[in-house]
């Protein structure tokens, strides 16, 4: 039984311009000890999906199962009981820590909410701070005395305090410098290896996700357009949007960058309040045809590696050929 299962999850917000379907019909499963990468551009609904799984925003449709228990509509005491199992690491290491609390109090907060005794909290906090390689005296200091990377470690310690089963990592390294980013990614990986925790790793940066994810999910305008094993999605993308994302991501290798053929998408994200009919991506898709405006493509197995793709057509071979051509030149 998977750790977390979501069946056609939908999250809606009422806006002055109409109903915003921030997340529509998303199904996913995360196993213990596994990382599901969630990729997409701003406004695609990836953060909202993360917050829906955290039960921080109301779920309009679908079901959410944690270890087989339906938590979609839990409230009050029963919700509080499952909260410790799912925790979150936030993007902004500044705003995610209350500036007026000492680090020890911040990390101990989930424990105190769970009713731990003062002494047990102090012991556990010391242990956690050691695990994220923060100095012993960190507990007595304030967050602003630490660098961005250290603050993110504090956030990770807080998320892991109650030994959660699942951690939602919402762009955990996007605000960090490159050299520190690697430290934090490695730290998250270490914890996974040791504790068997599952991650939902949300990021706009494919190169980061590639480095952490076992499986990958690509979202566009609230819908999943492609999902499957990370290796398969990244090496043999089946959806034109995934292909464009991969192609747009800058490669830190000048020779490769010059050699490859870049697909630069035209236009920008349409308004999520008023999405295009049929396939949401069709307005920017270089291969769009009449059928794409009429029919919503359903997720179906792509040929070959078996990832799921929401597209009426088969582009896998074509994209693979282009990718091989590029890497062939570099080799």
């Amino acid at each position: 039984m998977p750790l977390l299962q979501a069946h056609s999850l939908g999250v809606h917000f009422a806006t002055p311009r109409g109903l915003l379907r921030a997340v529509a019909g998303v199904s996913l499963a995360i196993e213990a000890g596994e990382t599901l990468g969630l990729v997409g551009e701003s406004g695609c609904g990836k953060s909202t999906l993360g917050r829906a799984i955290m039960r921080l925003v109301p779920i309009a449709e679908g079901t959410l199962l944690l270890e087989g228990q339906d938590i979609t509509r839990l409230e009050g005491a029963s919700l509080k009981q499952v909260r410790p199992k799912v925790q979150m690491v936030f993007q902004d290491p500044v705003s995610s820590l209350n500036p007026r609390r000492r680090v020890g109090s911040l990390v101990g907060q989930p424990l105190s909410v769970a009713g731990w005794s003062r002494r047990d909290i102090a012991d556990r906090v010391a242990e956690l701070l050691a695990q994220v390689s923060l100095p012993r005296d960190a507990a007595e200091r304030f967050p602003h005395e630490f660098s961005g990377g250290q603050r993110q470690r504090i956030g990770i310690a807080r998320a892991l305090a109650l030994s959660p089963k699942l951690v939602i990592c919402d762009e955990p390294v996007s605000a960090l410098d490159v050299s520190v980013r690697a430290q934090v990614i490695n730290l998250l990986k270490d914890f996974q290896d040791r504790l068997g925790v599952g991650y939902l790793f949300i990021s706009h940066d494919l190169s980061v996700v590639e480095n952490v994810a076992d499986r990958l999910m690509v979202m566009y305008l609230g819908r999943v357009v492609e999902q499957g094993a990370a290796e398969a999605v990244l090496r043999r993308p089946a959806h034109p949007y995934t292909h464009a994302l991969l192609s747009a991501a800058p490669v830190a290798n000048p020779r490769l960058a010059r050699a490859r053929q870049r697909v630069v998408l035209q236009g920008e994200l349409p308004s999520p309040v008023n999405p295009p009919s049929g396939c949401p991506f069709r307005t920017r898709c270089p291969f769009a045809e009449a059928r794409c405006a009429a029919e919503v493509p359903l997720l179906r197995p792509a040929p070959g590696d078996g990832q799921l793709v929401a597209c009426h057509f088969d582009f896998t071979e074509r994209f693979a050929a282009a990718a091989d051509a590029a890497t062939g030149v570099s080799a």
Partner: protein
Amino acid sequence: MAGGTPGLFRRFARNRAALLGLVILLVVVGLALAAPTLYPRNPLRIVGPAELWPLQDPRFPLGTDSIGRNIAAIIAHGARATLLIGIFASLTATLIGVTIGAAAGWFGGWVDELLMRLTEMFQVVPGLVFVLTIVSILGGTVENITIAVGVVSWTGIARLTRAEFLTLRDREFVQACRAMGMPDWRIVLAEVLPNALPPVIVLSSLAVASAILFESAVSFLGLGDPQVASWGRLVGEGRTLIRSSWYISAVPGVAIMLMVLALNLIGDGLNDALNPKLRNR
């Protein structure tokens, strides 16, 4: 709790004007505390010749008023009333303002709409008229004046608290608290409120000054407590002799001015000290 108190005072003391304000305030507080010792008997008692100018008789360093009461004694005892009314009126206003502002900002939606319309209703009535109405209905005791001033002064504090809550509500650390299952009341009181308070404290210190002005105005108009010595009342009583013995109004007038100035300087200093953006300058 905010980064250690010694640091706070050092940042406050960097502003020389604020330090001067603090000194003036401490002098007034000292005067208020010493009043019963310096002038143990009722200050409203007639003790000497009328309209004696200051520095003429060492017994009456600030002179006497139109019926021969010691102005120095009235100033000293008046400092008590002034300070008490100022501080308690400001506390009342802060309590009402923070509660209403916090509720509006935290819950949003129709609660916010309702509370903000209520705030606007209070804002459109001129403050002094409101205070005079309440005092003339309830009677001019010190308690009633304090409540009346508090009831008209909370609107600015409510608006500021609401604005702070609106920005803080969506911070990630609040989400983190919700994610760990912390109840709303605890998030509001222990997480959001301490972050929202610094600018509110500045405004509260300024509210003390405006409360003192309200009290002076009420007493000046003769609606104050007849049993209590008050600076504003002395200004009012001296106004008929403004051509001959102008010092009767001027002495308490200067006291009010210094006090209000001191509180404003302190407010500025607190603003600098509590504003994290200026901390590293």
